[in-house]
């Protein structure tokens, strides 16, 4: 049973992607069914993990280092569930945009298989423990993501997709080089086995290469230039997947590499560099977001900033310690932040897509007076903004609170100030669209109506982001299942 539970989230979307190409008429329904099926399976798997601890399976009975091993711990299963939630809702929301275009158009035909391939790539990345499998997962993920950016064939988005591809390929090459180096030195690619052996400089070099490759794929400053045009240029449901889900896969792998595989190879310099680049991303991304006058670009630059917060986990992990009960606070907070961002950012892009459809363009001016015309979508936008700003009660707040406490308790004030400043900057760039929604003067007279049920979809995701903050004790405990020791002790001895 557990074998199926672990392998189906990987296998089902792959299978569905093949079927969606073959029976393209049924593709949309197939994709939605897959979304909900995988969501159900992930929740089931999460319950199993909660009951019995981390679950490891070897496909076909071949143990590592020979066979393919999948492992679901709190971290992996948690990401699996949240991303399946986002995916299920996004696939429903994509229905109207891609169904209308008909099977004959490229977008209407290609969207569903690509989305399903992306889904398979994500799930593989969350469950795999093998560097080569992770590489394959990342490739699947990135290639389908690039194709989704270019799916409408508009000149701007094709350019954005090409730029994305250049960065992504560079990232892949670096990651593959690192994996090859690791294999050459230790004759295995399994993270669990590698963690048990004495690691020397070849592994340090391999980790450096892989970290750089993953940082590029996670759009860490200064490798973020590809992200905003790509995420803003894609159709809204695709943007939701790209911004909310795709960068999380490479981040989870980064967490695994440093916290599970080789915490002993970390150095103060590494922590300072990763944390520092994250901090610059928070400030730089937010400032750029403030300067945008198109809604989707604001949201995309916000992703650059929000991904920056994740990298603060490296210097802050193990920060509190001592008398505090939240010793794994920063490590858990990074996952909380990622979850909250997945839910809130997907909600925001879906809402932006509805605004765009109603108004006909996504310049900020078009948002005037929408609070009256599309109250539910605006409410969803507002709720997700609360989570992104890290205001209570929301998943974003819990994450920010835990990170701040780690920063202050360990005397690393600087990171704490970055967190506070980032929240205020987010308030500035998110307030501009919200403010316009509530300004009725100069509002456009005619809008394309958007059905109520479509507005409810982003609201569901935004509510989930808020509820993550209210009911965070369960997820917090869940993430501790199979948690690496370094999560509590920090990366430096």
């Amino acid at each position, binding site marked *: 049973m557990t074998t199926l539970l672990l392998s189906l989230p990987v296998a089902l979307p792959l299978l569905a992607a093949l079927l969606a190409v073959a029976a393209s008429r049924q593709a949309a329904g197939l994709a939605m069914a897959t979304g909900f099926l995988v969501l159900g399976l992930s929740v089931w798997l999460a319950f199993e993990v909660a009951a019995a601890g981390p679950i490891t399976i070897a496909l076909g009975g071949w143990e590592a280092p020979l066979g393919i091993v999948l492992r679901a711990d709190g971290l992996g299963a948690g990401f699996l569930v949240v991303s399946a939630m986002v995916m299920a809702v996004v696939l429903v929301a994509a229905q109207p945009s891609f169904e209308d275009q008909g099977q004959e158009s490229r977008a209407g035909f290609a969207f569903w298989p690509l989305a399903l391939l992306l889904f398979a790539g994500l799930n593989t990345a969350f469950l795999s423990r093998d560097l080569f499998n992770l590489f394959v997962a990342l490739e699947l993920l990135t290639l389908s993501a690039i194709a989704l950016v270019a799916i409408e064939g508009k000149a701007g988005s094709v350019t954005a997709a090409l730029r994305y591809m250049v960065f992504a390929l560079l990232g892949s090459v670096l990651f593959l080089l690192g994996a090859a180096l690791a294999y050459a030195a230790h004759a295995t690619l399994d993270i669990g086995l590698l963690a048990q052996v004495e690691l020397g400089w070849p592994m340090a070099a391999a980790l450096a290469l892989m970290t750089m490759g993953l940082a590029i794929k996670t759009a860490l400053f200064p490798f973020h230039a590809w992200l905003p045009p790509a995420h803003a240029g894609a159709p809204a449901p695709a943007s939701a997947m790209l911004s909310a889900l795709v960068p999380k896969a490479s981040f989870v792998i980064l967490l695994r590499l440093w916290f599970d595989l080789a915490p002993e190879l970390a150095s103060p310099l590494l922590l300072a560099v990763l944390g520092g680049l994250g901090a610059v991303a928070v400030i730089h991304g937010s400032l750029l977001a403030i300067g945008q006058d198109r809604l989707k670009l604001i949201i995309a630059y916000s992703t650059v900033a929000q991904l920056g917060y994740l990298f603060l986990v490296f210097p802050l992990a193990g920060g509190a310690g001592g008398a505090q009960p939240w010793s794994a606070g920063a490590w858990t907070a990074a996952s909380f932040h990622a979850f909250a961002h997945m839910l809130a950012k997907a909600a925001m892009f879906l809402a932006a897509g509805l605004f765009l459809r109603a108004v006909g363009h996504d310049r900020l001016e078009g948002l005037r007076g929408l609070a*009256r015309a599309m109250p539910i979508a605006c409410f969803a936008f507002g709720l997700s903004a609360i989570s992104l700003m890290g205001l*209570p009660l929301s998943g974003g707040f819990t994450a920010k609170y835990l990170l701040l406490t780690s920063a202050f308790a360990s005397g690393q004030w600087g990171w704490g100030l970055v967190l506070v400043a980032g929240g205020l900057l987010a308030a500035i760039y998110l307030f501009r669209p919200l403010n316009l929604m509530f300004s009725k003067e100069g509002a456009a007279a005619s809008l394309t109506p958007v059905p109520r049920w479509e507005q409810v979809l982003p609201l569901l995701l935004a509510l989930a982001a808020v509820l993550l903050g209210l009911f965070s004790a369960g997820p917090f405990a869940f993430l501790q299942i199979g948690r690496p020791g370094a999560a509590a002790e920090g990366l430096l001895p």
Partner: protein
Amino acid sequence: MTAVLPVLILATSLVPALLIFWLPERAWRARAWLNLGGAAVKILLVVFLMVEVANGVTHEARLDLAPGLYLLLRVDALTLLFVSLSAFLWLMTTIYAIAYLGDGPNLSRFFGFFSLCVAATTGLALAGTLITFFIFFELLTLTTWPLVVHKEDAKSVKAGRLYLAYSLPGSAALLVAIIWLESATGPVIFAEPGDLRVLSDASLMAIFALFALGVGVKAALFPLHGWLPEAMAAPAPVSALLHAVAVVKAGAFGIVRLIYDVFGIALTAELGVGLPLALLAAFTILWGSLRALQQTEVKKRLAFSTVSQVSYIILGAALAGPYAVIGGLVHLVHQGLMKITLFFCAGLYDERAGITRIDQLDGIGRRMPMTSICFTIGAMGMIGIPPVAGFVSKFYLGLGGLQAGEPWVVGVLAASALLNAGYFLPMLYRIWFGVAPADAPQADERSLGMLVPAVATAAASLAAGLFAGAAISPLAWASLIAAGYLP
């Protein structure tokens, strides 16, 4: 000890709010029933809890968020002082708002956020830990913003922007203060004060200052008061609620919690941070009154009067002597009753006679007698003329100043009373003795829904002063609270 009641009392405002959002615009009746029903149940619960607390029974509810981070709702005497005020005024304001807004646009959104705002205030009063206080404090900011911009015109949108521009940095300062403190001491629980001495004096002073800054924005403490007069662009019931219960009171309440439940009187005195705060409050009292004197619009003058009056509470809390504490706490209630009366009346003048400027008030007393009587009671209370409630607060504050060895307080109170008289008496003169110009617009009082709340709150301000010696008066309750804090 039960967990049901604190959650229930929060739910009386929260549940109606969540339901109202989904009601269609035309469901006036359902909205009214949900709101009034919630408010009525809440009042009953408050009365029951008052008996419980007076008998020494504790009620608390707890929700864990993460290790070391939990929401704690706890009913104590100070909680009830604030909750009872907000429950009574919520009921009154809801009746008023239903009549005031009539069949205007976006009513479900308005009443939804209106109830949410009251829920946030209730949660803030119930908060048993510092972080719970912060969470509801932020929720209050977020839920009042849609109310401020309700009219969606340029002026209210600007007011909303200003409100957030002051509030959000304030909250950031507050959060830093809280986490700085908690990262050294662990979670700060009001009922079980921890030892803050693990931090150095300098750190504690900085934390106190950051905290005062954070809540001072809401309490409109000088120089953080700029947003309040602008927020007058909101509909009259919102101004009434903002000025009497929700926002500014949340700030003042925060200061009381800070001094009495986080730092404690002893440590506050030892650090010497009480006096600077008292001086700042005294300055705000005078500054607000001076600015009120310069205003020509009714609502603006009332707004600056709030800036001044709320600082009485902070002054009392900061002086920390027995009488001063009582004076400050009781003013939390008294100012609420009197100020909401004044705002109800200002709304009536505006709606029924088109009066927004002070020079239009001439002779309105004869045409709108009930409104004008209520306005007069509120204004006399603000000046501190007995037997209206304001007199009691000021009397205790003055005594408290002397008792704390700060005789200048009496001077500040006297000067402020003179200034208050200076800006309220000319209004009263115009109302009662002015001669209405021949072309004055039509004026009447034919809006029972607006008049009844004004009369009720005016009567309550009068009763709170007349029967201050009774066992269930706000004064008696404030004395009970003060007795719990003083050595």
